[in-house]
């Protein structure tokens, strides 16, 4: 589904991502972890086209997307949610998701129709599946953090992605909200046969649903594989737990 | 026409103009660099600084070197004006969209422009050069007024002085930090509010000083505010918004463009300003020495 080959990115002499090779198969759920500053966000930004890698190639469904503009990558079937909630605060929840349907189905060039009428059924359905139906007419900017994250997910899902990138989906959530979100993600991934790639700091989350884990440290990929293997990996333990044993 | 002395004279003219532009543009750049506000009213501060200098010179009339005192007083008054405006009004707009801040400074241009007309009328006013610098010398066949020489030296002196303060002192470090990250600085205990006010006052001081010092060379007229602000924008764009030495460089370049541009393209000098600005913004928006706005 997604292949990353030898990708690097340097900012002003600081190497944020250094020669990373990574791949994820269709339907897999993978996580990218690493201490702060390891380059996880940069890595994501490189995949989604917000940044252009200095070297290396990125392939989505065997098509080269290296350096392609973000909107094109999105239309090819990649969705993304952001670490800091990134929604349309002045629109209602309904309008947020409806807008995503409109743009993704490429109706944006329509100067004549009435946007209000488009995709009402699909939007309602999606909101219902996310449990946001009762908040459909609320201003999204006024919602709680957890709800905003749900809206964010809704926007990403409205784009009918085949692969979904989630940047710290449970950041700032309570334990209960985190469990909710994980269950929601698992259900949706199963329903839509999604491929999921996410970054996380919460190790419980990672080990509960990830089928494959990649560990970044100072821009380099130091381990990759099944959760149990990664847990046993000496390098990973050193990076996370310090110079013990 | 291309005699050396003539060219040299043009060059010096451009240099003098550049130094005045630098004074004003550096204030503009400073305010933008720290407060992220593009102050349209900067030209108005310049103009009122000029009018105040004229006023103070008349008040101190008998004293021969009164000009210096008047200029200083004018600059300080503008600094005070800037401080009051920032404290009372501008600061409430920081949390709002940029458009509101821009419109606020534009409103100031309208108000200050008319206030100047009300107080000082629309006649041209002028100030004579201070006796100590009333003379002139001949250099390379060009007669240079001593006052202009003084300006040509003052400009770099102020530049170096500021650079020193910004780079080498604790105060300068705080200012640079404030430009980069307001919230963190606040968390560290620095009183960001007063830093902003201080910076605005300093920038205004420079504009007022520029206006005061230009009076022996140019007459004071309504409309000088709009004229100078557009030129200051260009200088700051050429050099890079927020970059100190960029502003200096931009002023030097623009001063010479003005000076020689009129010779080479007399019909197109009216375009020079806008075309130059457009060209820089298209090709290299962050100017020569600036950093991209992101």
């Amino acid at each position, binding site marked *: 589904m997604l292949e990353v080959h030898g990708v690097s990115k340097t900012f002003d002499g600081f190497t944020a991502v250094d020669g990373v090779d990574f791949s994820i198969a269709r339907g897999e759920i993978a996580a990218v972890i690493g201490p702060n500053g390891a380059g996880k966000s940069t890595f994501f930004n490189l995949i*989604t086209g917000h940044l252009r890698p200095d070297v290396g190639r990125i392939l989505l469904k065997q098509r080269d997307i290296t350096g392609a*503009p*973000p*909107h094109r990558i*999105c*239309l090819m079937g990649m*969705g993304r949610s*952001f670490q800091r909630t*990134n*929604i*349309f*605060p*002045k*629109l209602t929840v309904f*309008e947020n998701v409806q*807008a995503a349907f*409109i*743009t*993704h189905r*490429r*109706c*944006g060039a*329509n*100067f*004549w*129709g*009435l*946007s*209000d009428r488009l995709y009402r059924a699909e939007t309602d359905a999606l909101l219902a599946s996310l449990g946001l139906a009762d908040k459909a*007419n609320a201003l999204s900017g006024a919602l709680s953090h957890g709800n905003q994250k749900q809206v964010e997910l809704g926007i*990403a899902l*409205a*784009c009918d992605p085949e692969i979904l990138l989630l940047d710290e989906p449970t950041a700032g959530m309570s334990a209960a909200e985190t469990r909710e979100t994980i269950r929601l993600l698992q259900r949706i991934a199963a329903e839509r046969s999604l491929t999921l790639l996410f970054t996380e700091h919460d190790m419980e989350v990672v080990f509960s649903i990830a089928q494959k884990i990649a560990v970044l440290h100072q821009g380099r990929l130091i381990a990759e594989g099944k959760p149990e293997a990664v847990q046993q990996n000496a390098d990973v333990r050193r990076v996370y737990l310090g110079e013990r044993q | 026409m291309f005699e050396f002395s003539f060219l040299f004279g043009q060059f010096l003219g451009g240099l003098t103009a550049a130094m005045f532009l630098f004074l004003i543009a550096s204030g503009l750049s400073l305010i933008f660099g720290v407060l992220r506000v*593009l102050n349209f009213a900067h030209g108005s501060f310049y103009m009122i600084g000029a009018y105040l200098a004229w006023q103070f010179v008349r008040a101190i009339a008998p004293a021969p070197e009164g000009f210096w005192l008047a200029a200083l007083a004018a600059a300080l008054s503008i600094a005070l004006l800037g401080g009051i405006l920032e404290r009372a009004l501008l600061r409430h707009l920081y949390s709002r969209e940029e*458009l*509101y801040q821009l*419109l*606020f400074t*534009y*409103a*100031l241009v*309208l*108000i200050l*422009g*008319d*206030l100047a007309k*009300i107080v000082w009328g629309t006649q041209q006013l002028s100030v004579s050069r201070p006796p100590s610098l009333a003379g002139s010398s001949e250099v390379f066949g060009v007669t240079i007024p001593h006052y202009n020489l003084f300006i040509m030296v003052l400009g770099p002196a102020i530049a170096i002085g500021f650079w020193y303060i910004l780079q080498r002192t604790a105060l300068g470090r705080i200012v640079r930090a404030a430009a980069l990250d307001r919230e963190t600085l606040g968390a560290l205990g620095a009183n960001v509010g007063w830093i902003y006010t201080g910076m605005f006052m300093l920038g205004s001081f420079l504009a007022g000083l520029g206006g005061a010092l230009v009076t022996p060379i140019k007459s004071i007229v309504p409309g000088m505010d*709009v004229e100078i602000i557009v030129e200051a924008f260009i200088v700051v764009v050429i050099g890079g*918004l927020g970059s100190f030495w960029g502003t200096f460089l931009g002023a030097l370049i623009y001063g010479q463009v003005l000076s020689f541009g009129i010779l080479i393209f007399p*019909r*197109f000098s009216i*375009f020079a300003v*806008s*075309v130059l*600005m*457009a060209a820089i*913004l*298209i090709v290299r*928006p962050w100017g020569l020495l600036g950093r991209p*706005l992101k």
Partner: protein
Amino acid sequence: MKRIPWTIVVLAALLLVPFIGSRFYTFVATDIVIVSLFAMSLNLLLGYTGLVSFGHAAYFGIGAYTCALLMKSANAPFLSSLLAAGLVAGTFALLFGFFCVRLTRIYFAMLTLAFAQIVWAICFKWNGVTGGEQGLPNVPYPGMEWMGSVPVLGNFRVGDHFYLMALVIVAVCFAGLRRIVDSPFGRVLTVIRDNPERAQFIGVNVRAYQLAAFVVAGFFAGISGGLFGIFNRGVFPDFAFWTKSAEPLIMTILGGMGSFWGPAVGAAAFIVLNQQITSYTEYWPLTMGTVLIVLLFVFPGGIAGTLTGIVARLRARASPSATTVPVSEPGVVKPNA
């Protein structure tokens, strides 16, 4: 209060202005109608796409010159000239906008300003075509003799005839703008305004849409310029000067960015205020500046925003059990605003 079709009411009222029989009222009404189109065109950029342009007067000026030149020198029919004005202005908007949308925020604003100044300089200097500093005086009225034979309208003066024509044209333009704003395209614009980064990642080519908005705005500005040139009986370089760009900005803030009709209301208020103040004092800039500051600090939503707020509060008090509808913040687009 609720279901009164205000649009129809206002349109009817405007249609009746010539019946008052006052040259002055017709004059002011024409001014308001034409300039409100200018302000509304800017709001497509400002309120709906979130782009602050300081050079919108460029397209106003280009439209004015195009229409005047075609009618004066080429004797072209009015409607074609007007359409051409819009198209030429739109084309320049495409050219300039291409460079402008690659920049953001302050830089965008400054480049729009630079382009406007270039247009002004060209108009100022190109004596052969634009008449240079003198501009193009004596722009002819469109041929309106056919109006003389229409029963009611036959009694009106030329000024009234032109007013009615302008009113109809502007009304059609407003209908078009309304449709555009309610369309999916319009929705994408507000999405871009709210969060351009996120918009990218729902598949929006942000720059392309911004450019499209820029062109549409330029088109309508050109039409209003064409109309204004005729109304003003002459076209002059300062139509494109950057301080002229500030006027629709102020009108939009005055009326309220957040609603469709805000800028039109603002234009009306601005012109009426201008008429009143300039008859007492020459210090119009001082007054305008003060009004602007009061607006910025006390009434950021403008006239429309403040009125909507008051109405919402009255409604809430009248029926406290009703579910609260979110109050529109400046910049929010509601289809039935």
